[in-house]
């Protein structure tokens, strides 16, 4: 079947999509965007976090056919300009990346959090990132990165 979807602002029309294919596989294998990571395929780890019509979801738990006519934003689409999004830069500067596998999902989830809450406290960050696992256990640096991004985007005092 054919799926028509906008990914990071670009319209895609993809044929021969498997009826039961996940959005995660669709993004990685059909659209060629491999920033979205495949780790658990059961919604436990958040590595595949993307936006569908502005809502944060695990792309492994969305069927590709369900995004027909919708708009998807992946980690590759967070920055509208040339460089990196402030959240991405903050993860680099804070040393919040170890093996890096959870990082794209963490960044999309952190981006979503800061979008609705520009200056979250630690408890809020922990709650809002509770669906994203870092098996290197680098959580403290990830918290630092979120706060650094909040400061830089000018919301924090």
């Amino acid at each position, binding site marked *: 079947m054919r799926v028509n979807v906008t990914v990071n602002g670009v319209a895609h029309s993809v044929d021969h999509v498997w009826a*039961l294919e996940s959005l995660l596989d669709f993004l990685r294998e059909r659209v060629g965007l491999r920033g979205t990571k495949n780790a658990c395929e059961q*919604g436990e780890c958040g590595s595949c976090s993307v936006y569908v019509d502005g809502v944060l979801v*695990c792309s492994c738990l*969305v*069927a590709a056919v369900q995004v027909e006519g919708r708009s998807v934003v992946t980690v590759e689409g967070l920055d509208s300009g040339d460089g990196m999004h402030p959240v991405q830069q903050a993860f680099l500067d804070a040393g919040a990346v170890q093996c890096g596998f959870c990082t794209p999902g963490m960044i999309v989830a952190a981006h979503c959090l800061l979008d609705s809450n520009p200056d979250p406290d630690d408890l809020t960050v922990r709650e809002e990132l509770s*669906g994203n696992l870092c098996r290197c256990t680098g959580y403290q640096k990830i918290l630092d990165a979120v706060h650094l991004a909040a400061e830089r985007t000018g919301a924090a005092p």
Partner: protein
Amino acid sequence: MDIPLASGPMLRPSSWRGAMLLRSQYPDASPICGGTDLMVDINFGRARPATLLDLTSVEGLDSWELIDDGRTVRIGAGVSFTSIIEELSDSCPALAQAARTVGSPQIRNRGTVAGNLATASPAGDCHPVLLACWAQVEVESVRGSRLIDIDDFFLGPKRCALEPDELIRAVLVPAATGPQQFAKVGPRNAMVIATVSFALNLDVAGRRVGTGIGSAGPTPLRARAAEQMLQDALADRWDGSGGVDQSVCRRFGDLVAEAASPIDDVRGSAEYRRHALAVLGRRCLSWALADLGGMDGEAAA
């Protein structure tokens, strides 16, 4: 590996009537909304439906309304847990509490009460609350629509009263008329399948007590003896006056534990589950009574 590849058509009705017709025309299609249960089974090869019947575009399915002069909340099958938390914390406080314990933000953004029901896991987070609130499940097929009392809905582990050609259209939850509580035990605060869970509803207007137990039997369970005991104990104290003895809370917790029929499994032993249920029952009651104004909940917990 001999897994037949699904090749059916894309089924994406935009109206409820369309969904009904497609449901009857394609009995081998799996209904999908949030996908948080079904997609896991598909990703792990445990489910291979011919195709999917995607309900996310059905108009109106993701909204709720007050009916019955405001006494009942009719929650559309597509309403996400996030919406329940944000919009129904006042009218359905225990349901909102349970919704807060579901998965993670990503899961709550997609998952629905109706999906929770259709999966019919004994551990489903909403189920104890729906039992405690005497909810009804509104289901429909091309043959017509019917309401299923929540006590008749769960038939066994992952088995429910939904007929093969039916879809859940909405869940009817009586609006709270008094304190409600939900509590859940698990190894962490997020992404946890309940080891046990418990819900309590003090229906002040109806002068009755509702309970629900999760993850401690083949289906979610009601603690009938505990309900009756507490109703008797509250008899003339529903206005919160007079106070209720500490021993009532302990007795209540014990009766909740006795109503369970738990098993040993990877999430916990039967013995632990019984113990935890006694604690959850006692705590939920002491919190609810504190809300009612009858006793000091902090001291009791």
